[in-house]
């Protein structure tokens, strides 16, 4: 254990080796390949635990990666408390997800590919949280994105999955490009790319450049964490296998943006503009995504928008400087959201459908799934004494202190959160079964992880003080007033939904009109992006190709060629095939040229 604490880079190297091994030995091992792959998250977990107990310094590793002239760009890892916590979270969730996947993906022809990618993802995620500098971070950042792309498009024969994969990668890549630019500006200003340097950078950079760099890095965080205005890729990402959604698109990768800003909190707090933007983006996204979630008919879409909304909560906390609160919420959210996704996966596995309208009454047919789901739902809604209650309370209280308007926005979002999760619970697990398949409880390989995560969702709230101490801050007591209001709002939202959907789906929602249609369609944001960004770019590219490249640039070149040929046609009159005529021309030209040279050289 102490060895792991001293060599945290092993948390990257071991999963990488595992991923390779899975690829190489996949066929030989058959179904057992999953157990090999589980070594990857286990190594993350072990490293994380070792780091939690061990010393948090002296384990830095930094190697020169790009060296030329005076420029030396190093990449390195550094295992501190935050990294340790993230490693544990990623390790546990990944381990549970892999175990769940053994059952979920059992009959899939791409079984080996799936587990290789998950192992690779573990490596990249470990690199992301352990990164000691921006270049290592960017490398890991884009690699998790690539894993996400490959896993969303895992069922590549489905056109919708292929499209969703591209969309996810491109939208997050917009953020990555901003991040790249931010790193470049910071590097030029200080000649440094280390995170430590960036944390102490504001003094060196000055306010203006600090704001610019922080905003550019924020763009990357917004893309990865699916915040407005780059939030619209996450719902589509649900095309991937559900365990992937649980791991990457709920618990770990999408939280990377939160992690990044938490890492760089001094930078953001040095710029009022940057932290203000973080707060505004977070609060707005929290509310907006919650409103969309209430109208979704697809159980995974509900959870997707819920994830966006909860990440907005975390961003809002980051915006007011309460980064420990944000990380606390990140940890509890990872637990209960992964639980909800896996629960949804279990349900989808049983019913063969993702539509809430095809479910109903599953509590009787899938009791263990139902119980664990409800634990996750209560945690998400913020009902005490479950985990979500504690972490959300810290977040909302901190935001209220920093900005009452944002705090109220979050409270409103809490109400909606309770409403949509109660709606989903009621429609899926209660009432009468409306589907055609014959749902049954999943095997223990799938329910086991659910149980583990449910334990986390129930009890992690108690870990709050320990987490905050780990992150080097004094735990704050529960603010009773905020807690009471939040719980009351949550209960109100939940009860209203329970009553509203008592009789199964509301028929009007099947053919939505007006506001409900807008909510269900995510305010038409997707279509607007397609219409105002994607299509113009494609049309511009097509037009530029036809009119610009072919007609103008190439046309000019070919035109010169044709002109030359036509001139050549005139000249061809000179070319009568008489060799002596040619020789005479050559001679005359030589005489003229030499004469010119003689004249010039007088």
């Amino acid at each position, binding site marked *: 254990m102490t060895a792991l604490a001293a060599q945290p880079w092993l948390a990257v190297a071991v999963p990488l080796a595992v991923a390779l091994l899975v690829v190489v030995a996949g066929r030989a091992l058959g179904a057992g390949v999953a157990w090999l792959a589980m070594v990857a998250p286990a190594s993350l977990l072990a490293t994380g635990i070792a780091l939690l107990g061990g010393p948090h310094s002296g384990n830095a590793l930094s190697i020169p990666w790009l060296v030329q002239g005076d420029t030396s760009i190093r990449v390195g890892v550094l295992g501190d408390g935050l990294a340790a916590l993230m490693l544990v979270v990623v390790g546990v969730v990944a381990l549970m997800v892999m175990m769940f996947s053994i059952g979920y993906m059992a009959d899939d022809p791409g079984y080996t590919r799936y587990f290789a990618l998950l192992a690779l993802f573990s490596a990249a995620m470990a690199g992301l949280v352990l990164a000691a500098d921006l270049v290592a971070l960017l490398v890991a950042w884009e690699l998790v994105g690539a894993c996400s792309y490959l896993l969303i498009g895992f069922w590549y024969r489905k056109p919708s999955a292929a499209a969703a994969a591209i969309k996810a990668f491109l939208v997050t890549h917009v953020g990555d490009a901003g991040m790249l630019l931010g790193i470049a500006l910071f590097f030029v200003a200080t000649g440094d790319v280390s995170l430590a340097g960036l944390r102490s950078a504001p003094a060196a950079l000055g306010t203006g450049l600090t704001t610019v760099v922080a905003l550019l890095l924020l763009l990357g965080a917004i893309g990865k964490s699916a915040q407005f205005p780059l939030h619209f890729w996450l719902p589509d990402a649900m095309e991937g296998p559900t365990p992937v959604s649980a791991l990457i698109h709920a618990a770990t990768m999408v939280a990377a943006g939160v992690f990044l800003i938490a890492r760089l909190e001094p930078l953001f707090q040095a710029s009022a503009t940057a932290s203000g933007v973080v707060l505004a983006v977070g609060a707005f996204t929290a509310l907006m995504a919650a409103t969309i979630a209430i109208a979704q008919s697809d159980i995974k879409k509900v959870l997707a928008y819920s994830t966006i909304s909860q990440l907005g909560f975390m961003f809002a906390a980051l915006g007011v400087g309460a980064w420990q609160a944000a990380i606390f919420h990140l940890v509890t959210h990872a637990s209960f959201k992964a639980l909800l996704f896996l629960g949804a996966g279990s349900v989808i596995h049983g019913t063969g459908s993702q539509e809430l309208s095809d479910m109903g009454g599953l509590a009787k047919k899938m009791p263990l799934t139902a119980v664990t789901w409800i634990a996750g739902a209560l945690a998400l809604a913020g009902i005490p004494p479950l985990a979500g209650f504690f972490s959300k309370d810290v977040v909302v209280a901190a935001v209220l202190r920093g900005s009452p308007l944002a705090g109220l926005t979050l409270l409103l979002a809490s109400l909606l959160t309770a409403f949509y999760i109660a709606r989903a619970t009621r429609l899926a697990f209660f009432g009468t079964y409306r589907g055609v398949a014959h749902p049954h409880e999943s095997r223990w390989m799938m329910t086991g992880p659910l149980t583990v995560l449910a334990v986390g969702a129930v009890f992690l709230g108690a870990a709050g003080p320990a987490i905050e101490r780990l992150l080097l801050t004094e735990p704050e007591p529960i603010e009773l007033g905020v807690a009471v209001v939040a719980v009351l709002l949550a209960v109100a939202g939940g009860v209203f939904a329970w009553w509203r959907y008592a009789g199964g789906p509301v028929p009007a929602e099947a053919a939505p009109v007006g506001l409900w249609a807008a909510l269900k369609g995510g305010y038409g944001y997707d279509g607007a992006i397609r219409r105002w960004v994607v299509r113009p770019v494609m049309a511009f590219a097509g037009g530029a190709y036809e009119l610009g490249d072919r007609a103008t640039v190439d046309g000019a070149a070919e035109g010169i060629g044709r002109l030359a040929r036509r001139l*050549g046609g005139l000249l*061809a009159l000179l*070319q*009568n*095939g*008489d*060799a*002596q005529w*040619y*020789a*005479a021309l050559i*001679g005359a030209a030589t005489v003229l040229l030499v004469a010119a040279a003689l004249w010039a050289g007088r």
Partner: protein
Amino acid sequence: MTGMPVTLLSAALFGLGLYGTLTRRDLVAVLACVEIMLGAASLQLVAFARAANALGNGEALALVLVVLAAAEAAVGLGLVLATVKRTGKSRVEELTEVSG
């Protein structure tokens, strides 16, 4: 005798050869005129070698030219023979196949 006189002589010989090359109408004569141009060139070369007191170099170069000329004559005449055999024409104005 170096310098201007030999330059004038070789230039005049070269001009004559060029004129013949351009105007003679049968291939063998054209070749003969080309030989005259080559001879003029190597004459100048030898004169330069004399002037530079580098006899070995100049002589060697001129020798190279002589051999080149011999090779050229052999191939050229061979071509003429082949052309005549193939087309029955040995007159330049009848041979316009190199026309673009």
